[in-house]
C-alpha cells in the first residue's frame, strides 16, 4: 500500500463506484485471470472469481500447492513465468512475504497481491477504504477505532497506512502484546497522524466514525489464562453501541467468530457484509485499471 498514492486511491474508489452504479460498463470477455492461491483462502478467492466472471472474463485457479509442480520443487519464478504464458492477469496469495512484488517483477502481465504472509493485503485495504467512503461520504478527518489483534492482522496495517493520507485520528484498542507494530506507528508519527493506544475501546465509542474489528485468536496467547482475561474486552455487542454517532459503522474483514455478537447484525451500524460485497466492485475496478478495460 505504501506505493499507492492518494490520487490512485481516489481514482479506484471512483471507478468502483461507477462500476457498482452501472455508470460505466466494463467488458472482460476473452480475458483470463489466473487465481493462484498458494495459501488457501475462501472469501478473497471467491470475491476475485465473482469480480472476473461478472465482468465477462474467465478464471482458472489453484488453491494450496499439493497438486502443483511447486510440490515437485519448481521455483516460484518458473511457475509464474509458465502461467503468464496462458493468462492475462495473475491474482496471487502466498505465505511468503514479498512474493507478489517478486511476481510482478518476474512476469510481463499484471499481478494483483491477494495477500502475502503477514505483510500486505492491499485489495482488502482498498475495499475497506471504498466502504468507508460509501458510509461516511468522505475519507477525510475521520475518527477510526481499530480493535482486536493489531499486531498480526495485516488488514489493519494496510488500512492504517492507506488512511494516513486523509488526516485520520486513530484509536488502537488491543491487548498489550497484540498492539500495532512499531513500524506502522513510526510511519504515522512521521506523517503527524494523531493516534492513541487503549486496552478498552468503550471510553471512546461516542467519538468514532468507524470501528474496524479484527479477531483475537486464542492461539496467539502462550497462556490460556491471559486470553481469558482479555477476550471479553474485545467483543462488540449491541449494548456497546448505545451512545455512538449516527454515521457510525462497524467494519470487519471477516470471517468473524465471536468478536461481534449476532445482535449487532440487525442494527443500522453493522456494515461487514456490505463491506464484503463492496470488495467485488473494488476488485473489478483494480482489474479494469490494470488491464485498461475502460
Amino acid at each position, binding site marked *: 500500500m*505504501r506505493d499507492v498514492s492518494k490520487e490512485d486511491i481516489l481514482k479506484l474508489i471512483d471507478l468502483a463506484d461507477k462500476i457498482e452504479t452501472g455508470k460505466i460498463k466494463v467488458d472482460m470477455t476473452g480475458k483470463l485471470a489466473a487465481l493462484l492461491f498458494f495459501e488457501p483462502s475462501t472469501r478473497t478467492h471467491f470475491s476475485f472469481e465473482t469480480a472476473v466472471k461478472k465482468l465477462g472474463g474467465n478464471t482458472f485457479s489453484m488453491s494450496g500447492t499439493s497438486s502443483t509442480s511447486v510440490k515437485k520443487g519448481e*521455483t*516460484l*519464478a518458473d511457475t509464474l513465468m509458465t502461467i503468464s504464458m496462458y493468462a492475462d492477469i495473475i491474482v496471487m496469495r502466498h*505465505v*511468503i*512475504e*514479498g*512474493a507478489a*512484488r*517478486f511476481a510482478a*517483477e518476474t512476469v510481463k502481465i499484471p499481478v494483483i497481491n491477494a495477500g*502475502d*504472509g*503477514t*505483510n*500486505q493485503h492491499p485489495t482488502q485495504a482498498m475495499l475497506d477504504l471504498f466502504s468507508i467512503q460509501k458510509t461516511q461520504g468522505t475519507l477525510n478527518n475521520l475518527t477510526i477505532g481499530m480493535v482486536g489483534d493489531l499486531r498480526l492482522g495485516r488488514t489493519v496495517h494496510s488500512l492504517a497506512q492507506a488512511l494516513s493520507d486523509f488526516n485520520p485520528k486513530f484509536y488502537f484498542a488491543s491487548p498489550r502484546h497484540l498492539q500495532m507494530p512499531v*513500524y506502522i506507528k*513510526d510511519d504515522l508519527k512521521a506523517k503527524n497522524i494523531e493516534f492513541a493506544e487503549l486496552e478498552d475501546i468503550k471510553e471512546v465509542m461516542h467519538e468514532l466514525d468507524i470501528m474496524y474489528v479484527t479477531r483475537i485468536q486464542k492461539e496467539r496467547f502462550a497462556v490460556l489464562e491471559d486470553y481469558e482475561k482479555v477476550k471479553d474486552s474485545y467483543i462488540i455487542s449491541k449494548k456497546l453501541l448505545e451512545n455512538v454517532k449516527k454515521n457510525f459503522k462497524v467494519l470487519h474483514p471477516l470471517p468473524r467468530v465471536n468478536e461481534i455478537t449476532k445482535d449487532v447484525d440487525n442494527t443500522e451500524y453493522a456494515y461487514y457484509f456490505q463491506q464484503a460485497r463492496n470488495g467485488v466492485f473494488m476488485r473489478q475496478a483494480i482489474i479494469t485499471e490494470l488491464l485498461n478495460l475502460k
Partner: protein
Amino acid sequence: MKKQLKVDPIKNGTVIDHITSGKALQVAEILNVGNNGNEIMIGINLASKKMGKKDIIKIENRELSKEEAGSIALISPTATLIIIEDYKVVKKFGIEIPKEINHHIICPNSKCITNIEEVPTRFELAGKNPVEVRCGYCEKKYFIDEVKFRF
C-alpha cells in the same frame, strides 16, 4: 615534537578514517577485508582531534567501490575515504548514506521472498538516526545492527 603514526602508512590502497569508535571490526566484516590476502591494519579507539576517539582501517592494494563506501556509511556516517597511490593521497572524500542499497544486505526475515527465491535484495533507507533500512520486498524495517551484509 615529532609526529608519530600509530599505524604504518600504506603504499597503495584505501584508508578508511574517522570511523565511529568501536565500529571498525564491523566495517571490516562487511567489506570482507580479511579474506583476500591483502594487508590490513585496524586501529581502534585512536585519539582524534575531531572526534575524541576514532577507528581507522588501512587496506593495502584495494580501492573501494562506491557501493562498498555507501555500506560503510550505514554503520559509520562520519567515515572518510582516502585513496593512496605510491604513499600519496590522491583522493579524499566523505561518504554519504545511500538512499537505496541493492544486493548487499541480507534480509533477516526468514519468510521474505529474498531468502526463498534467487532474487537480489533491495533495501531503502528508512531512518538516519539511528540508521534503519526497509526491505523492498517484505517491507519489514530493521536497525542497521540487525542486518548482515554480503559482497
